[in-house]
């Protein structure tokens, strides 16, 4: 199982702050994005950053492990 988290404006457009996807062997970050982006195009229009297990990931071809936590994030606006 892969847990996908959303925050702030992205969560608002997805309509959820958490989704779970079935893990498939050989899965990469880009596969998760390819699965979700067509379903939530307005949310992904805001996405500029992704993180896996709390670490920012620039390379979308990163292989994922089972039970990992993926986050698609818009630009931060804290402070």
């Amino acid at each position, binding site marked *: 199982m892969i847990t996908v988290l959303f*925050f*702030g*404006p992205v969560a608002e457009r997805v309509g959820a702050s958490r989704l779970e996807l079935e893990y498939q062997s050989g899965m990469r970050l880009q596969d998760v994005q390819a699965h979700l982006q067509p379903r939530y195009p307005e949310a992904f229009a805001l996405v500029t950053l992704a*993180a896996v297990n*709390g670490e920012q990931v620039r390379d979308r071809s990163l292989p994922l492990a089972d039970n990992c936590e993926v986050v698609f994030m*818009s630009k*931060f606006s*804290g402070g």
Partner: protein
Amino acid sequence: MQGPVRIQLADFSHDEEIRALQAGSKRIGGIATFLGCARDFSEGREVSEISFDAYEPMAVAEMQKLRKEAIERFGLIDARIVHRLGVVRAGDSIVFIATGAEHRAPALLACQWIIDQLKERVPIWKKEITPQGDCWVTPHP
């Protein structure tokens, strides 16, 4: 005494944060702080409240990294970073940074550096709640 890096719902005391910063060393000669607070106007809109969402574990980890980097980069004696979550009103505190050094210049420079970096690097998002509706803030590029 509370830790030097925190994300919390509650407000905090400047006096307590300064005391905590000073507790570790009597060699501190200069302390700079920055307090970000909620305004009642933002880009022409009246703002009654601001609410925050955060990816908490990553936000805290990034704030801890920021503190460590600032201490090394500016030769600080200590630094503290506190960010609030939940809902705040006009005049309320949002973010607090305190930096202590032997002399004033590194403390002031580090304080500015930390708030600039925090805005870039810490996964927190703010929503302005106005009489006309809610609006997630989009940072300027």
